[in-house]
């Protein structure tokens, strides 16, 4: 038998859930290489780690959505096989997903209660209404789930979990769309459930500050393995950062480059009084050699703005001015021809062709240009190879499918495809979401490099740390409007948070 690794219990009692040497691979790539830790009864167990995929895969295994390729799961000391979500529920484990998976055309009440099998529906309904009150939710049971905001949908997901009174509730990034007040309400509820009903929580987050507020024990994942595990008192913010990203030389280098950015700027692209679906009266200018960031919380209208500029949607009014001339952008093809590039937010949905090879991906936007009728396979191959070397994309060959590359390299391929169009302005929408720290650094460097080469860079990001590192200038959007503009030295996470959430909200998450 191989050594399992240290398993630390915070309380005297037996752990409620134990994971021993859990392994999982996708497409031949290991995502979990022997993960072991245990969750104590009545404790909030934090789980953090770089690349998103490891954590959520682990949680999906725990909640019966995936089956592990190796390893053991124990609930209250007994070994279990969780073949389906139902099996996990029956064992007392429930996952509250990060992205809501509700039934949009059914009522909120049905969304919550339909999955429950108890016969006494009246009692269930009672519990449901009580939970709505306890969480201070502002919706009616008969409203359709598809018609309420994202934050409310997340609350509904939470209620789905709480109403089952499981032994372990897994919360996957529960505060990502909540305001500060709502987050505090959530914490209060977690503490209450912990105390009153001895429920354990697995708390996944990338907001490291939260850990020290609510978490009792912590497990840190890196490169598909556990690198640290223990009571929260063993950790400090510094130590946590180091554990996750030891080879990152953060801020300093890029900060230096930021300061050198003074002097005359040549404006390339200007947006005037632009209004469209989700935003109104937006004005800004992008200059060569400048990295402009547009930030705000989810729903602020940034992606809609970018999509409208790029020609995916039609604006209701406003002008776009490129190199001093007004232009009309009717569709993405026109935008590309003018020299605009848009690297979309969710690379799987909008940016990359997972089941196509690298050549097809890299050339997908320039196919029209490279040849008239027949496909120019040699030109395409050459272009692909050049792109791969320029951006240091790690792959076996250009014939590989995009799916076979790591997340970070996939993002590079998508970036490379846009660079192939020789753009004047590039819009990047949440470019490093779900990407490990090393690749993140490379992407930041590339953004800088491109900016230095005279391309206007517009980065849309809700990661305030990232914004602080990258930006020469920041626009903050809120509810569809630009509410403030920040320049150094006022670009820091605190100032950004205030502006993004609106000063009126009061205390912000530090």
């Amino acid at each position, binding site marked *: 038998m191989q050594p399992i690794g240290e398993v630390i219990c915070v309380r005297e009692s037996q752990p409620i859930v134990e994971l021993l040497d859990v392994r999982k*691979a996708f497409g031949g790539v290991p995502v979990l*290489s*022997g993960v072991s830790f245990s969750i104590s009864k009545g404790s909030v167990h934090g789980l953090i780690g770089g690349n998103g995929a490891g954590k959520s895969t682990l949680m999906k295994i725990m909640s019966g959505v995936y089956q592990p390729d190796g390893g053991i799961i124990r609930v209250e000391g007994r070994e279990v096989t969780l073949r389906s979500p139902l099996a996990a529920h029956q064992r007392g484990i429930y996952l509250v997903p990060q992205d809501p998976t509700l039934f949009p055309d059914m009522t909120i009440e049905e969304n919550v209660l339909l999955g429950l099998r108890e016969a006494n529906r009246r009692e269930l309904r009672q519990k449901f209404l009580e939970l709505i009150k306890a969480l201070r939710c502002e919706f009616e049971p008969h409203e359709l789930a598809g018609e309420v905001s994202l934050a409310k949908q997340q609350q509904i997901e939470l209620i789905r979990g709480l109403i089952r009174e499981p032994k372990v509730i897994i919360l996957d990034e529960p505060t990502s769309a909540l305001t500060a007040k709502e987050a505090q309400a959530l914490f209060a509820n977690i503490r209450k459930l912990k105390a009153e009903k001895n429920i354990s929580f697995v708390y996944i987050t990338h907001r490291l500050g939260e850990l020290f507020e609510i978490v009792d024990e912590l497990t840190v994942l890196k490169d598909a393995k556990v690198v640290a595990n223990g009571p929260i008192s063993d950790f400090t913010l510094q130590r946590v950062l180091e554990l996750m990203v030891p080879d990152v030389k953060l801020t300093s280098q890029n900060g230096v480059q930021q300061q050198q950015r003074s002097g005359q700027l040549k404006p390339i692209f200007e947006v005037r009084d632009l209004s469209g679906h989700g935003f109104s009266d937006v004005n800004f200018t992008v200059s060569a050699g400048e990295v402009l960031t547009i930030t705000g919380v989810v729903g602020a209208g940034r992606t809609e703005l970018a999509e409208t500029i790029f020609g995916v949607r039609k604006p209701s009014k406003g002008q776009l001015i490129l190199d001093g001339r007004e232009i009309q952008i009717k569709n993405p093809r026109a935008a590309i021809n003018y020299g605009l590039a848009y690297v979309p937010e969710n690379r799987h949905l909008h940016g990359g*062709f997972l089941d196509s*090879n690298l050549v097809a991906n890299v050339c997908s936007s320039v196919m029209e240009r490279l040849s008239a009728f027949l*496909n120019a396979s040699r030109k395409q191959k050459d272009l692909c190879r050049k792109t791969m070397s320029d951006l240091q994309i790690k792959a076996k060959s250009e014939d590989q499918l995009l799916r076979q590359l790591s997340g970070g390299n996939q993002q590079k391929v998508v970036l490379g*495809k846009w660079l192939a169009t020789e753009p004047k302005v590039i819009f990047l929408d949440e470019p490093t979401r779900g990407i490990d720290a090393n690749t993140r650094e490379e992407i930041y460097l590339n953004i800088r490099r491109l900016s230095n080469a005279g391309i206007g860079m517009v980065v849309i990001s809700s990661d305030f740390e990232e914004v602080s590192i990258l930006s020469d200038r920041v626009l903050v959007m809120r509810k569809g409007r630009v509410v403030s503009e920040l320049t150094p030295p006022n670009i820091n996470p605190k100032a950004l948070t205030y502006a993004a959430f609106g000063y009126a909200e009061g205390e912000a998450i530090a």
Partner: protein
Amino acid sequence: MKIFRSWITALFILIAVEFAIFGSISPYFLNLDNLLYSVGDFLYIAVAALPMTLVIVTGGIDISIGSTMGLASITTALLWYLGMNVWLASIFGLLSGAAVGLLNGLLLIITEINPLVITLGSSFLVAGIALILSGLAGATGFEGISGLPYAFSNVVNGTILGIPNAVWILAAVAILFYVILHHTKFGQQLFLIGVNRHAAAYSGIDVDRKLVLTYVIMGMGAALSGILLTSYFTSARSDLGSDSALSVITCVVLGGASINGGSGSIFGTLLASLLIGYLKYGLQMIRVSAQATNVYMGLVLIATISGRYFWELYSARLKNRAATAVQKTS
């Protein structure tokens, strides 16, 4: 890529096995002349399966091709019957197919409804129109228009250099579609659309136009099929080829294309067409009825998809087990 190569190999093996089985049952099967001439029997399926590959690569489907075949057949024959030169009439027959494809394509991009349902509806509409047209020729119901000129029927039934025209035609159409799908910009873009339609749109590809064009090509291919059938039978009927959608789709899927789009090959479709075509021929030879053949076609289709599903499941599981096992030793 690897899956693709092994799929093609598997097809070759299956054809070999098929020939071996039928050959052992009846010596006439392996007669070269018989084999070549029997291409005329299933030419219409193969000719329709080739453009269908394009449609399926984009993630769509078209089950109205059977009706389009009938429409093209009747249109051609009707115009000839009314005095037009038969070749010119054939051009109009092709155009009628293009019209159907245009209808399908436009409906698809305007309503964004599943192409299955759209082509289900148009299938009936077109069959009805074909029926009405045949009524106009006095060939009411399912009687045909016959007596077409010898030169016309010779298109499929004749020979050049001793090889039946059907073989030449199949080869020519196969080469044409091979170039279109695998060596043009258009074909490349179809693959991208099939893999990720949204990403294709964001990449500046005019998805709508490409899709409409694809369905128009399909319509014309089906029309060509219908006209070739008419030539083969030397008569036209409005229900010519009405059952063919199933066989055609089976050929494409059996040829390695994914029903969800994004992958497919002309060569695979061609091999699969031969496999299916000779299967029908062989079954006929051992006196299996046409209906039973249809049952077998249905089973083959279902078995192919199901088989592929289980194979992918199984091989993924093996790959992942191996990957995690390797980790243990390191």
